[in-house]
């Protein structure tokens, strides 16, 4: 059982790296200089491209976070399962010994 | 069942009137709470805009938490809880009696809090007294309904003082939000009846859902 959870965790780690690479490949060009002080409001669509907030870091952060959370949770589950399983086996063996 | 609820309510009120323990301490705590907010938020005699509604409901929530924590304390200490539960009447009657006791206590607290906040934060809370009373009543009922159930369930639990707010506040956040928005709508210079009615209807809906759910589950959840 614990082996399975470890395998799942390994898969997640692989996917994490793959996503990071793919995300980096898809990144739009980085923004240029900081924008000048505003004297009027402009909607975000009409801003020149270099002033807009780059989306790629947000996207990568989101996907990496998701995969990291699941990876860590699966790891925590695996740890708890192995520890309880160990105790169950140990107790079972002790009981069997004391019965015989 | 109504008779038993009424009897429990009368018992609690009688003990309260004689000793005043829960009532006075809750009231004092609520007033202190409001004063702390006043010290923190009122600058040079000018209170923050629209702060009064939120502060009123925060004070009610904190005071309610304190009162609920001790609602079943007497029963727990004197072991009369078992006697109450063995009474030949439906158990929800115990719940109803306790609920009404808490509501009365909180109503007394609010009667002091509302003028105090109106004074300290220069908010015209008493401009529409009937609507104010309606929103306060329905919000308090919703808060107390959930709180009485959880306080009853926690009577025998470990670390119940800490667990009561942990359990209570997430569930009652919608009630408090509705109460705050309703009160804030009442504080506007022009009276916007639609908005007030909307939040009041929402509060009534919460009350109906919470009281019904509590009555259903009180029986099965009450541990001795």
């Amino acid at each position, binding site marked *: 059982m614990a082996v399975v959870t470890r395998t*799942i965790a390994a898969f997640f780690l692989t996917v994490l790296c793959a996503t990071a690479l*793919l995300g980096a490949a898809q990144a739009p060009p980085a923004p240029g200089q900081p924008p000048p002080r505003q004297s009027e409001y402009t909607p975000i669509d009409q801003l020149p491209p270099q002033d807009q907030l780059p989306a790629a870091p947000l996207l990568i952060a*989101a996907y990496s976070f998701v995969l990291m959370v699941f990876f860590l949770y699966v790891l925590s589950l695996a740890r708890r399962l192995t520890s309880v399983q160990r105790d169950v086996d140990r107790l079972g063996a002790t009981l069997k010994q004391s019965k015989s | 069942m109504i008779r038993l609820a009424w009897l429990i309510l009368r018992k609690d009120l009688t003990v309260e009137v004689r000793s005043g323990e829960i009532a006075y301490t809750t009231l004092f705590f609520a007033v202190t709470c409001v004063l702390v907010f006043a010290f923190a938020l009122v600058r040079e005699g000018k209170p923050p805009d629209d702060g009064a509604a939120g502060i009123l409901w925060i004070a009610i929530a904190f005071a309610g938490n304190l009162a609920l924590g001790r609602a079943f304390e007497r029963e727990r200490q004197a072991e009369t809880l078992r006697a109450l539960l063995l009474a030949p009447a439906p158990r929800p009657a115990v719940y109803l009696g306790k609920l009404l006791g808490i509501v009365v206590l909180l109503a007394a607290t609010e009667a002091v809090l509302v003028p105090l906040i109106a004074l300290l934060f220069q908010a015209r809370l008493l401009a529409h007294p009937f609507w104010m009373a309606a929103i306060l009543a329905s919000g308090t009922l919703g808060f107390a309904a959930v709180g009485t159930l959880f306080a009853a369930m926690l009577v025998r639990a470990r670390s119940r003082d800490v667990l009561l707010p942990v*359990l209570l506040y997430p569930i009652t956040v919608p009630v408090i939000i509705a109460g705050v928005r309703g009160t804030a709508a009442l504080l506007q210079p022009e009276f916007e009846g639609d908005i007030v009615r909307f939040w009041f209807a929402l509060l009534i809906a919460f009350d109906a859902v919470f009281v019904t759910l509590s009555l259903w589950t009180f029986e099965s959840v009450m541990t001795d």
Partner: protein
Amino acid sequence: MRAATVCALMFALSPLVIASADYESTMGLVQKIFYYHMPSAWMFLVSGLVCGVASVRFLITGDARHDRTAWAAAEMAVIFGLVTIVTGPLWARKAWGTFWIWDARTTSSLVQWMVAWAYLILRKYGGPGSEKLAAGLALFGTANVAFIYVSVNYWRTIHPPTSVVPKLPFTMGFPLWYCVAAFTLLFIVLLKLRVRLEEQRATLDSLYLSMDEQG
């Protein structure tokens, strides 16, 4: 555990599937967070429902299996809720200009998440007898779930309404449903594993008891 392998493979392929989807016209690249945000939000709501239903069944029958399912579902709710609540603001920062707004859906989702946390705290620190208590809490919390789903349609809010999903074109619909399938599979696998942990703990307790009896 074939399900676990399938699930892991689906997740491994998901970036490719998502990359093949069309760019949304106003939000561009960042909208692709949607393909993880929405399925995890759905699983968050589903966990809330499962927890509530299992709690009701536990209150009615007293069967410990329902209690274990409820506990596992609460933990699922915390995990999927965490994913939803972090990916949402990351998307919102670009799409709406701000990390968080207090509208009906975000507020009630946050409240539901806090209820799930409170459930776990209660189970951990409540001591004996906290199963029924937690079941009562879950019952109240579940009433919130339907409210979240419906709230977006009734309150004027900048959160996209639920009508967006059926109208998706195929290039965007397919990645979405693919991710929904992946997340559902993940939810089922994790839930089963978590329930198994509780079952093992129960076995351990009974073993301790029989050891005490033996002397």
